[in-house]
């Protein structure tokens, strides 16, 4: 036996207070009321004092007891006294709140769909018996419990009221499976699974549980929104960005939509697209700039869901690598270095050598040894043996270049066949050094990843037979990229929606060389499958994927909208019920208690109240009034 609405302590306190009040009123009613009047000559008592005394002694205590008993029973009825164990009488319901991005759209009335959903959820909650527990499940791309199974209605109402639309599309099937599983594992007696939302889902295949109830929120049918936005460097023009914007028509009718592009607030292009129902089109723009800034794609339409009409990506600054070459023969290296558009080379005489020149990233020392070692990264080409930064082992004539390094940066694309160098120095490689080229085990070129970085070539590639090889410009490019990878990093920026993202890279990836970071630099879990990097994020923001020389930036701020609208089958219960019936083992006693209380109060009136009235009437009728006396 337990009280549903009150604890026993609350019941006892309430009963004590009300009983004391009744007793006080009883005493007050029986006490004489003092009253000052103008004259006493019209006043005559209603009944004799003798009758009053008798009634008070014999009957009034029982009347009081009956009244208090009646009130106690009424209080028990209000407190909803029930038989059995409280836990056995409760049922557990799961309220699946649609918190997908689409719930931020506005309905026909102008109110947010989320607001309508909240109203419906609160209305449903009022129909749930107070002993039942309810869990609120927030459903978007993932299903997240917002509360546990809770009996406290204030907590549940607060959770419902604080629910906000997310940024991803609804995975209803996953949410319903989760709710069903959660009910099985954590509930003794399963109640309803109630879905409240617009039903715009990513996939329309939904396994409907038997105890599902749907509180549908009427949703607008027409919407055109951005799906993706991407930027990458043009392969042909170093200063140009190729920008592509993907637009989808989610509605039922064809739409003409203008897509506008802005860079740093200035118009950068526009297209008009004609989109058929449930179709997607891509608009491509080209924009030339080396400056950093925000590129914004905007749909010039006015629909119910404006959140997916805009996407912004931040363009990084395209920075050139500045190389200072100290050489007496600048024409030898000029063709090699000028082939790279991301590089600016300056040529000076060795006599003008400075160890730390201003605004220079890398030094190239062509066949001379400076009096003071460089303080920045440097490439030494055939330095004098006595002053080489890496110890020279010997000088080898007719050295056959037998092997190039397998380092992914330094050795990328280096291929030669039967190349024989007339004369080359060989070096003593230290631990940690990378041997770029060797001849029968003797290192001809070494890269030392110290600080500053050093690369030493035992021969001059352009002055040897290697000048006819394709490997020559690649050798310089690889060495420079190894020294300053940021300057050669290839950027690719993508705008999309949160959720699961798959990045397709060029070539097979070493998982150790891949890093995935959020905008705060925190690591994002990922998997590498061949040349694909996959990660998942549920929060809107920017995610960087670093794979060697490539940097993929994903700006996941475009809200994801489900492509189809799920319609509940006819077998599913719909709408807000009048009242959800209680659990199978619950036994309501409140109406019996209320009836008993009414019976007791009626008995009290029958035994005492009616008799009292009859006595008064009898005594009044027999008592002469003063006027009668006077007459």
């Amino acid at each position, binding site marked *: 036996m337990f009280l549903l609405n009150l604890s026993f302590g609350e019941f006892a306190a309430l009963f004590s207070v009300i009983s004391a009040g009744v007793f006080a009123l009883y005493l007050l*009613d*029986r*006490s*004489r*009321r*003092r*009253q*000052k*009047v*103008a*004259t*006493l*000559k*019209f*006043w*005559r*008592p*209603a*009944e004799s*004092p003798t009758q*009053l005394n008798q009634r008070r002694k014999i009957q009034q205590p029982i009347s009081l007891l009956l009244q208090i008993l009646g009130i106690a029973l009424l209080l028990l009825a209000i407190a909803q006294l029930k038989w059995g164990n409280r836990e056995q009488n409760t049922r557990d319901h799961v309220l699946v709140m649609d918190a997908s991005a689409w719930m931020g759209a506005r309905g026909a009335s102008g109110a947010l769909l989320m607001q309508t959903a909240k109203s419906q959820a609160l209305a449903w909650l009022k129909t749930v018996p107070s002993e039942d527990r309810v869990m609120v499940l927030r459903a978007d791309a993932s299903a997240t419990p917002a509360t546990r199974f809770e009996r406290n209605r204030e907590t549940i109402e607060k959770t419902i009221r604080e629910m906000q639309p997310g940024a991803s599309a609804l995975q209803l099937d996953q949410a319903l499976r989760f709710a069903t599983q959660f009910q099985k594992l954590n509930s003794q007696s399963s109640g309803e699974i109630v879905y409240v939302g617009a039903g715009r889902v990513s996939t329309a295949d939904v396994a409907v549980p038997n105890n599902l109830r749907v509180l549908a929120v009427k949703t607008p049918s027409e919407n055109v929104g951005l799906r993706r936005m991407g930027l990458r460097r043009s392969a042909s023009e170093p200063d140009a960005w190729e920008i592509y914007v993907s637009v989808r028509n989610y509605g039922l009718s064809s739409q003409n939509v203008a897509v506008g592009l802005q860079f740093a607030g200035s118009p950068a292009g526009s297209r008009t697209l004609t989109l058929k129902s449930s179709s997607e089109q891509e608009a491509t723009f080209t924009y030339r700039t080396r400056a950093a800034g925000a590129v914004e794609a905007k749909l010039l339409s006015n629909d119910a869901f404006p959140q997916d009409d805009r996407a912004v990506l931040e363009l990084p600054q395209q920075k050139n690598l500045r190389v200072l070459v100290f050489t007496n023969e600048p024409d030898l290296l000029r063709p090699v270095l000028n082939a790279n558009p991301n590089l600016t080379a300056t040529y000076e005489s060795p006599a003008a050598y400075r160890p730390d020149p201003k605004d220079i990233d890398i030094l190239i020392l062509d066949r001379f040894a400076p009096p003071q070692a460089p303080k920045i990264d440097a490439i030494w080409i055939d330095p004098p043996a006595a002053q080489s930064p890496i110890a020279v082992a010997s000088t080898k004539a007719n050295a056959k270049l037998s092997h190039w390094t397998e380092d992914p940066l330094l050795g990328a694309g280096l291929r030669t066949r039967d190349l024989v160098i007339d004369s080359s120095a060989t070096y003593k490689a230290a631990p940690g050094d990378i041997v770029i080229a060797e001849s029968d085990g003797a290192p001809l070129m070494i890269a030392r990843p110290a600080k500053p970085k050093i690369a030493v070539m035992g021969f001059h590639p352009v002055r040897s037979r290697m000048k006819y090889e394709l490997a020559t410009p690649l050798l310089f490019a690889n060495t420079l990229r190894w020294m300053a990878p940021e300057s050669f990093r290839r950027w690719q920026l993508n705008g999309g929606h949160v959720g699961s993202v798959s990045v397709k890279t060029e070539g097979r990836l070493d998982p150790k060389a891949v890093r995935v970071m959020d905008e705060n630099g925190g690591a994002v879990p990922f998997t590498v499958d061949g040349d694909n990097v996959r990660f998942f994020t549920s929060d809107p923001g920017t995610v960087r994927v670093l794979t060697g020389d490539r940097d993929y930036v994903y700006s996941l701020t475009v809200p994801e909208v489900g492509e189809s609208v799920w319609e509940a089958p006819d077998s599913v219960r719909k709408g807000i019920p009048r009242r959800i019936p209680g659990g199978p083992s619950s036994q309501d006693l409140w109406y019996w208690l209320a009836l008993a209380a009414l019976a007791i109060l009626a008995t009290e009136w029958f035994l005492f109240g009616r008799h009292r009235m009859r006595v*008064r*009437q009898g005594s*009044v*009728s027999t008592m002469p*009034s*003063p*006027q009668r006396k006077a007459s």
Partner: protein
Amino acid sequence: MSTEPLIDRLLLEKLERLTLHWQRSFPGLIGGHNTSRFAGAGLEFLDHRNFHVGDDLRAVNWRAFMRLEKLFLKMFQVEPRVPVRLMVDISQSMTTGESNTSKFLFARRLAAAMCYVGLVKLDTITLQPFSNRLHDSFICGGGRHRFMPAGDFLNALQPAEGPSDFLACSKAFIGKYVQRGLLIVISDFLDDQDCLKPLQYLADYGHELLLIQTYAPEDRVPPWKGELDLEDAETGKHLEISFDDNALKQYTAAFDEHTEAIKRLALRNTGRFSGLSTRISVEEAIFGPLAATQGIA
């Protein structure tokens, strides 16, 4: 003493057009505004009568004599100047009641209003408070600009201690005011003694009575039920009774019977009676029940 005036300016403006009326003709009084059945030195023609020796020759209708060769005397209507006395009950019984406006305040407001009406018509008003005796009176006359002292006098009145005694007050009144006139009595007429006999005594002396009974709603229909310990406001006597609906009906019937007896007394002596509940305002009382009795119009 309250600084708030008993009657506001708006009501005073409305009272300008009213007049205190009486029905009797009081001999030997002239100069007022009320018509009289008595002929005398007036301006309004009343009637003709035959000429008698000693009559004033200036009143002979010489035109009629020329035609008929008989002397007829023109008679003119007297416009008497009747003293108006206003008795205000200030006994403790006037302070009872649970309504917002006490009978005491209501009576003083009503007295002030009637005093103003009389002053406007150039009547002479005597304000006479009473309880178990006649208290200090105040005489005012000469126009509306004399109202302020009268209002201050009424405002300064305080309830008097002791039981009210109509008989003693009536005797004292007759001894104090020999000249007959209009006597307005504002009281609840609720005392332990009989007030009918003293009132009859005043009427028999020749005063025209305008009896105004002010009563609180609780005086007629007490709202209390159950066991009551009643205290007489004037005597301090206690009465413990059990009071119910039937007793209430009897109480109200007795009260109405008492009121009816007072009314009968007034009408029997060519006077007037008005019962006013404090639930209504003074303005409603004057332009409603009092105007209906033609005591003021």
